[in-house]
Structure formats: structure tokens, C-alpha cells
């Protein structure tokens, strides 16, 4: 073999040997790192750290460390609302850790949160959930979407992991370990229909939502039942993609115009719903567009365009920050935002939604004893969540009261209307019609 060839071969082997060493070291690191996720109670730096299940003598206990998963969508089809939610949740974790979380018996708790962006892919969500559970031994997850939360709901019940989601799907209210600080989507939508009936009277309603997305589909059967109860006529289901383009929205608006509705329900997120509002104005469809909670927020006046002013409204179980002057509880959120470097004007509905989910978890932790937190973990949190009233001082439309087997904490929502001058107006609180239990309709409808 020639000298050059031999030298080349030797160089190759050296590179390969280096690669093998790197891989082995990396593997060893990952294996070791993977075993460090137990829930811990720190005593003093010199003392041994008992893991969950090994309760240390009380007088030595100073800080309990717990792991919580944070599953968000910052890059997927719902990232238009997911980024703000993630920001609020992270700010809350940092704020409460800084301020101090104390169990009922006065032991400080530190929450280590593990954030994963699953891009609204339920398959990826399951992978991350396994990581949360098996690698970090989380006792709770602050989650996101409907499909992934519904998919994991039975598993989290088996694992006894409390799951507080940004999905308010009615199918979750009967799942023992799933919680959210809002009425379910179906109850929200029915309350929205109640507002339409009160404000404008009975009429024809068209439903625009993504037919292959669990979140968008969630309240549809309940809306149809509620419309019937309120004397409205459903004139069609229109398949508006969650990631709609202007062309999609315009096509749907034209199809809807043929059905001549008085009202339009939009069950997607804000980008899609705003495009639909624009398209409706463009094609001359003169109907009031009512959006689900994730389909309308402070950005709507800019996104829908002036032509749609006076024709768009949104549902929200939470008071928008812009309407919160004098609401004391909001100061907590502003303080947390300030600590996280978020200016007050960037504290939006989405930020509040993320913050509240973590806040609910923190409130539950504050109601358990340190021993219960260490030994019974998620089970103890679930019991507390189901046995207390959680009051967020006016941020939510009503105080929260979960019942065992039925996690609808309240039934009231705010309606926010985009007025003709482009300002957002709080129309007040509305509740679903008494005659129909919208959450049950969705659960029974499958």
C-alpha cells in the first residue's frame, strides 16, 4: 500500500477511535443523567437526600424538590397561541419558586419544571410524557392540546400524575387526574350561543372548524344540541383547516355565504379564525363570528382587519388583562411578568392562561402536607383539587370547584366583542342554557 494511503487509513482509524470514545462517554453521561430525576427532599447540604417515599424526619426537612413536566407547542400549528401560554407558565414557575411555595405544614417546595415543545404532535407528546414519567418522575404535568391530553388521560390516571391542561375538552372532565381552570369547551360554546340568542335572537348558524383536529371538533355536538334548544338552525359544518391560508378561508366564507347564516362559529385558533373573519368581510357575508377561547384575543383587532369590526366576538373563561383594573389578583401576574422580564403590555390572555394552570398546581401543593407530597404525590394533589374551592380573585369568571368524577369547575364565561371602532368590549358573563348539559352531550356523543 502506498504511504499516502496508509496515512489516510491511520487518520481514519484515529478519527473513528475518537468517535467511539465520544459516543461511549456520551452514552455513559446520558445513562447517569437519566437516573437523577427522583423527587427529593433536601435537608442540609452535608446530609443524604431521601427520595420520594423515604420520608425524612420532619425537623430536618427544609426544601422538597418536585419535578413537573411542561408540554407546550411553540412551533406547531397552534403555536400562534402556544407561545404566549408557554411564556406565562414559565414565568409562573419561576415566580412561585422565587417567592416560595410552602406545603400545609410549612415545608418549602421547589418545582423543577422540564419543558418540551411537542409541536402539537400527539405521538411526540406521548414520547415526552414517557420521558417526564420515567426519567424525571414527575408528579404533575402542565400540558397543552386536546388530542394529546385525551390520549394520555387514562395513562396519567394509571400513573397517578396530575395533568393540568390548556385543553378544556369535555371528554377530560370525567378523567380522574385531568384538571383545567375553566369550563369545558362544550360548556363555553353553549354559553357563547346563549349570548348570541340573548343579544341578537335565534337565527341560522354555520360551524367552521378543522374536521380532523380533536380540539376543533370537541364542542360541535354540544353546539348542535344547544342551538336546537335555543331555537337556532345549524346550516352546515365547514372544514376550515387549523393552518388555513387566505385561499382556504375565502373558499369557506363563500361556501358559508351560500347557506346565508346569521352567525358563524369558529372552532380553530386565532390565525385561522382571523383569516375567516377577514374573508367573511371580503365576500360580504354579513354574520356575527363567534370564536372559541383560542380563536380570539387582544390581537384580533389587528388580525381581522377593519372591515370585520363590529362583527366578531370571542369567548373567554378568564378576564382579559385590559379589563382587569382594580382586580387585585392580577398584581401577582404582573409581578411575575416583571420578574421574568415581560413588560406589562405583553401580559396577554395567553400569558394568563399559562400562568393560571401553574398557579392552580401551586395552590394544590400549598394544601397538602409535605409527607403526602412525598409519599402520595399526584394522588394527594388530586384529592386536594377535588375538595377545595380555588378562588383566583376575579381572574376566572367564577371560583373553581372540582367534584370527584366531574371536573367542570364552573359554567360561566366572559364574552368579549370587537366593536365597530376597533376596541374590545367586555359584554359580561354568560352561562350555558339550563335545559342542556353541554359537557354530557359531548361525552355521550363520543
Amino acid at each position, binding site marked *: *500500500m502506498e504511504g499516502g494511503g*496508509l496515512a489516510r487509513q491511520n487518520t*481514519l*482509524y484515529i478519527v*473513528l477511535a475518537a468517535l467511539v470514545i465520544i459516543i461511549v462517554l*456520551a452514552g455513559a453521561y*446520558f*445513562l447517569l*443523567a*437519566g*437516573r437523577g430525576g427522583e423527587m427529593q427532599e433536601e435537608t442540609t447540604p452535608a446530609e443524604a437526600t431521601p427520595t420520594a417515599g423515604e420520608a425524612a424526619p420532619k425537623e430536618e426537612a427544609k426544601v422538597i424538590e418536585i419535578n413537573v413536566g411542561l408540554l407546550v407547542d*411553540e*412551533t406547531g400549528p397552534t403555536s400562534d397561541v402556544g407561545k404566549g401560554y408557554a411564556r406565562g407558565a414559565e414565568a409562573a414557575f419561576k415566580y412561585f419558586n422565587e417567592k416560595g411555595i410552602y406545603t400545609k405544614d410549612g415545608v418549602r417546595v421547589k418545582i423543577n419544571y*422540564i*419543558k*418540551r*415543545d411537542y*409541536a402539537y*404532535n*400527539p*405521538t*411526540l407528546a*406521548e*414520547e415526552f410524557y*414517557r*420521558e417526564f414519567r*420515567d*426519567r424525571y418522575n414527575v408528579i404533575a404535568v402542565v400540558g397543552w392540546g*386536546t*388530542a*394529546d391530553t*385525551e*390520549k*394520555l388521560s*387514562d*395513562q396519567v390516571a*394509571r400513573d397517578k400524575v396530575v395533568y393540568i391542561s390548556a385543553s378544556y375538552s369535555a371528554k377530560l372532565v370525567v378523567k380522574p387526574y385531568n384538571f383545567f381552570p375553566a369550563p369545558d369547551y362544550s360548556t363555553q360554546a353553549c354559553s357563547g350561543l346563549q349570548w348570541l340568542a340573548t343579544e341578537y335572537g335565534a337565527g341560522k348558524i354555520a360551524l367552521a372548524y378543522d*374536521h*380532523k*383536529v*380533536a380540539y376543533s*371538533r370537541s364542542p360541535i355536538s354540544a353546539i348542535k344540541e344547544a342551538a336546537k334548544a335555543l331555537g337556532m338552525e345549524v346550516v352546515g359544518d365547514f372544514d376550515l383547516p387549523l393552518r388555513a391560508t387566505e385561499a382556504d378561508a375565502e373558499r369557506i366564507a363563500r361556501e358559508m355565504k351560500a347557506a346565508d347564516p346569521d352567525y358563524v362559529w369558529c372552532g380553530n385558533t386565532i390565525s385561522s379564525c382571523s383569516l375567516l373573519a377577514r374573508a367573511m368581510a371580503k365576500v360580504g357575508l354579513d354574520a356575527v363570528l363567534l370564536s372559541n377561547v383560542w380563536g380570539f384575543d387582544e390581537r384580533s383587532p389587528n388580525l381581522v382587519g377593519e372591515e370585520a369590526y363590529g362583527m366578531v366576538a370571542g369567548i373567554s373563561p378568564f378576564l382579559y388583562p385590559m379589563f382587569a383594573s382594580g382586580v387585585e389578583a392580577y398584581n401577582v401576574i404582573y409581578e411575575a411578568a416583571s420578574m421574568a422580564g415581560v413588560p406589562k403590555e405583553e401580559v396577554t390572555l395567553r400569558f394568563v392562561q399559562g400562568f393560571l394552570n401553574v398557579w392552580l398546581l401551586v395552590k394544590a401543593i400549598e394544601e397538602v402536607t409535605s409527607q403526602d407530597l412525598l409519599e402520595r404525590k399526584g394522588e394527594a394533589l388530586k384529592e386536594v383539587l377535588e375538595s377545595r374551592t380555588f378562588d383566583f380573585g376575579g381572574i376566572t369568571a367564577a371560583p373553581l370547584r372540582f367534584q370527584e368524577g366531574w371536573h367542570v369547575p364552573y359554567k360561566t364565561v366572559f364574552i368579549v366583542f370587537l366593536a365597530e371602532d376597533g376596541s374590545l368590549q367586555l359584554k359580561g358573563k354568560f352561562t350555558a342554557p339550563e335545559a342542556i348539559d353541554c359537557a354530557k352531550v359531548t361525552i355521550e356523543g363520543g
Partner: protein
Amino acid sequence: MPAGVFKETYEGDMAFIRYPIHKAALVLAVIAGLSAPLLLDTYYLNLAITALIFWVAVIGLNITVGLAGQISLAQAALMGVGAYTVAFAALKLGVNVVLALPLAGITAMIIGLVLSLPSFKLKEYYLAMASLAAQLLLEYAFSRIDPDQYTPIPPEAKRLASIDLNEPEALYYFTFIVAALMALAAGNIARSSYGRAMKAVRDNDVAASIVGVNVPLTKAIAFGIGGFYAGIAGGLYAIYSVGIGWEAFTLVNSIELLGMVLIGGPGRVVWGSLLGVLVLRTGWTLLESNLVPILAAMGFSAFASAIKYIVLGTLITVVIILEPEGLIAVLRRVKEYFRLWPYSY
């Protein structure tokens, strides 16, 4: 000619285990495989299970693409066919998932055979387009039969006699056995007359036809076998999962599987496929769970989420340019070095 141990007969040269180093590697692989549940915690055991599942899928694609030279961008969709077969058999008919697994393979094989039809007339880019159409069509079908974005797999359907596949250890051994059998079969297919016919079609289909190879039949067999492997892999994935959703079987997933073939070693159906899976799936998962959060914490969230595709694209490009035979070729050189040691010149 380099020094070393050389075979003097055709049978010896084509034997499954030819050299002592093969024997040693096989024994080590079996020991490592069997002892994994004793050494790994649940998180890493789950990674091992998914690696084995994807190994099966990539072996199938490697037979179609690497061995027979027929481009396919629909392997993830075929996995989906297998996964939904198991899911619906378990959910709607109450069939045990283990019993539904062969059905998953057969269903996907039939779809694979249908996908082979365009290959009788089309080649290269045009064939890629046809398989792309099939992928998108199946993807659309999945999204319509599964509008809630997930189909649950009942835990009770994962229990057979005293074996509970809800337990990671049991599932690991089950997957390990299935994957090992599938790999063994694939190794033998590659050495069989069918395998040689596939190679002939891959290298020059006109010449293959002239020497008597039934080209359409060979292509159909390659697609059928590829589909069967994808179906079994999809079925295994359904058994592994709490529920399956159509987002797991999209075009991006098909491209990832193709990337695993190209990086591991096209035509090296067993070990090349394994290498591709270890680098692109398992290796990436480990990096992702450690590197991406660090990047995100440093304020590079957008970059962190895109890094997977940057790494994937770069890796495929670099490997294709520098080592078109895949990483397995590098490994083979190392193996040859030790096989011929100390007379490797």
C-alpha cells in the same frame, strides 16, 4: 491482495456467519440485547424498544430501496396501515394485539403490492412521485378515519396469557424477538435468489431482464416485503403506544425512514439499517432531550426546534457525498482492519 482468511467455496462465501468476528459480534449483540432490561431504566428501555421497532421498518425500506433500487416515500404510511390494523382489531373486534400483528404485516404487504404497480412502468423521480402520492393519499385516509387524532389501544388487549405487554420489560423482549426474527429473515432474503434478483434489477433492470429475471415480479416482491416489514413495525408501534395518531405516519416520517436507510447503508439491510436507526432516531432522541432544552434556555427556541431538520439534512448530504455506501461502510473498514489484523496491509 490483502492477507486474511478467505473462503474457497461459494457456500462458504455466502454463509450467514462467515468469520470469527461475525460470531463474536453476534454473541455480543444477543447478550447485549437480552441483558438490556437488566441494565437500563424504563426511559432507556423505551428508547431501545422504539429503536427495535424502527429497525424493522427500516429493514423493510432497505429491501425496497437499497436492495431492489425502487424508491419509496410511503414507508411511514405503510407503517400506519399496520398500526391502524392492530388498533382497530384490538379496539373494535377485541382481538389480542399479538394475534393481530401478522394481520398488520399482511395488510401492509397487500398495500405495498398495490404500490408496486407504478414501478412496472416508472423509474426514479417518477416512481418517487407515485409513492409520494400514495403516502399523501394514505395520510389523508388516516386523518379521516381517525379525526380525533388518536385511536386508543386498550391495555387489556396487550395481555396474552401471563404475558403483559404493558410492562416495558415484557414488551422489550417481545419486540426484541420479533425484530431479531425479522432481521434474520431479511439477511436470508438478501442472500437468496430473490435477493440476487433484486440486486440485478437495482443495478440494471434491462440486463436483469435479459438474463431471465422477472423484473415486474421482483419489484412487486420487493415492495411486498417492504410493506410487510412496515406493517409489522407499525403493529409493534401500536402495541408500544397508549394510542396511535396519524401524525406519526406523515411524509416527514417517511423521509426520516429514507434518511435512516441512506445514512446506515443502502443495500445493507440488517446492520446498515440498525446503524441508521441508532444514529438518526435513538441518537437524535438523546441529543434532543439534552441539547434542545439547553439551546431553548439560551434563547434559541426557534433554532432549537429546527435543529433536528438541520442536523438530518446536513447528515444525509455529508454521508451521501463522503460515504455513499453509508456509515456501515466505515464500520466495515474497521471490521476488516481487525479481521485482518495484524496483516491489514
